[in-house]
């Protein structure tokens, strides 16, 4: 506490990353485990001079192929990893400030990829209580937070269940509830759908959109382009650097560059482009299936008249 004086104005970006460099194996020993995931070279920069700003209440997608540094970047936002160079300011705190680490992690929730490996307790409600318990929240208040956060992910009726009896999507929703119970300002999703079936993926994406509607700042790390279409901004990472950045419409207009980065355009964007090639008048701003089908239906109507 007492660091509140350092918090800056409300209208500033909630995440401000300046020239961030992160190298595995140099000084962060506990990060060693991840180095195998990125590359085994001991001193290569997993994140290399990245500068990003994320506005309060926005939805930012970070996308890139395996080893592009997107997960490492995410772990730098809630001080799970500390920058080798450059700085990260999150919700008014400098992540390099050791005294602020719990303040930062309370404000920056994180949902991980593997639904099995992030639930701590053998009962759903006890797991949701884990975060608030760590923060020293009073038991009655924890009960209320469990009710609110499990209801927010539609899992309240499963509160007495054992996590291993739930589906992947349900487990991931419980993990989200566990983060929500800490009342975070930002939630980072680190490939939350990578290990789920299509149904679970849809459930989790639906919850993420809902949270964004409720003014929580969302940072979604993913390698599915489809999941980025509803975000406010997309950051494409490649080899530890920001390769492209912009709104979905801006990004998807540069299809050649996207493909050269080893990524695929979302289906709807691809389809629109092919339709345009064949002379169907489809504007380039349509990003969702609903928007495209509405447009095509309208076209069809006109053609008949």
């Amino acid at each position: 506490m007492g660091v509140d004086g350092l918090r800056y104005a409300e209208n500033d970006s909630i995440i401000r990353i300046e020239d961030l460099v992160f190298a595995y194996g140099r000084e962060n020993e506990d990060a060693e485990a991840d180095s195998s995931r990125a590359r085994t070279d001991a001193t290569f920069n997993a994140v290399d001079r990245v500068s990003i700003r994320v506005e309060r209440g926005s939805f930012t997608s970070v996308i890139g192929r395996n080893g592009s540094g997107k997960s490492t970047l995410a772990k730098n936002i809630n001080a799970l990893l500390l920058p080798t160079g450059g700085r990260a300011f999150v919700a008014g705190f400098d992540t390099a400030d050791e005294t602020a680490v719990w303040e930062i992690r309370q404000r920056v929730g994180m949902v991980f990829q593997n639904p099995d490996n992030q639930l701590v307790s053998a009962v759903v409600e006890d797991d949701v209580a884990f975060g608030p318990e760590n923060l020293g929240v009073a038991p009655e208040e924890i009960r209320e937070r469990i009710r609110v956060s499990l209801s927010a992910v539609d899992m309240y009726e499963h509160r007495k269940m054992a996590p291993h009896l739930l589906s992947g999507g349900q487990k991931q929703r419980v993990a989200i509830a566990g983060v929500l119970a800490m009342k975070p300002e930002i939630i980072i999703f680190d490939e939350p759908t990578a290990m789920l079936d299509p149904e679970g993926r849809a459930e989790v994406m639906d919850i993420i959109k809902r949270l964004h509607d409720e003014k929580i700042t969302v940072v979604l790390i993913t390698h599915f382009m489809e999941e980025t279409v509803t975000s406010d901004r997309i950051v494409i990472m490649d080899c530890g650097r920001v390769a492209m950045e912009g709104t979905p419409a801006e990004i998807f207009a540069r299809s050649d560059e996207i493909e050269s980065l080893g990524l695929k355009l979302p289906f709807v964007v691809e389809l629109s482009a092919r339709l345009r090639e064949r002379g169907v008048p489809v504007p380039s701003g349509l990003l969702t299936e609903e928007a495209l089908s509405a447009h095509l239906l309208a076209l069809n109507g006109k053609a008949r008249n």
Partner: protein
Amino acid sequence: MIRDITIGQYYPEYSKIHKLDPRLKIVVTLVYIVSLFLVKDFIGYAIVFASIGLVVAMSKVPIRFILRGLKPIFLIIAFTFTLNMLMTKGTILWSWGFVRITEEGLYNAVFMALRLIFLIIGSSLLTLTTKPIKLTDGIESLLKPFKKMGLPVHELAMMMTIALRFIPTLLEETDKIMKAQQARGADFETGGLIKRAKAMIPLLIPLFVGAFRIAQDLAMAMEARCYHGGEGRTKLNALKFRGRDAAAIIFVVIYLSAVVAERIFV
């Protein structure tokens, strides 16, 4: 099918015994075990039988579940029974060669067997009526005084909680690895003991690696949720001593005085 396994032997039911404070249940079980050693004759066992019978009835746990707990130690009971019967000197009831069964031997054998049986029934009643998590909470709370002596009580309890959570996960993992190895021609079922033990190696190594990976992920997830040890931590289900716990204490006091009185006066 591997998903259906239950940990420990908890029998879900909403009885008065289930709802008792786990700390009390642990202490009472210890008192009960001690009391069994105070009993010196069958009248004493009658008191024990009446009391434990009443508790079993109140717990609504079916008798066959309670008797199931006796199965693994059946051999021990049989062994103790035979040894006591054959090795005690006294009035000979029946003899054949060097085998002699004495009156005192038979008495001792029945006496010891009953003590073991009551012991197991009492302690399995604890695990049958208390969820493993509650049991962990109870143990943590009871061990708290030893914290000052440097015993990492919170850490031990957290380890138990996590172990309970991850037993099913690791079982699933084992199942998966086993199927993967079988698909590649591994044979876990035939051959002698040594051959089968050797066949386990390709199962155990990936399992260990997997367990370390899970531990690493979990540690990261726990840190991200602000876990920093037991300091300044609250508990959702703080243990509370209620009216029924007081009633249970009165019952235990009556039981214990009856056993002691029987030992002294009868």
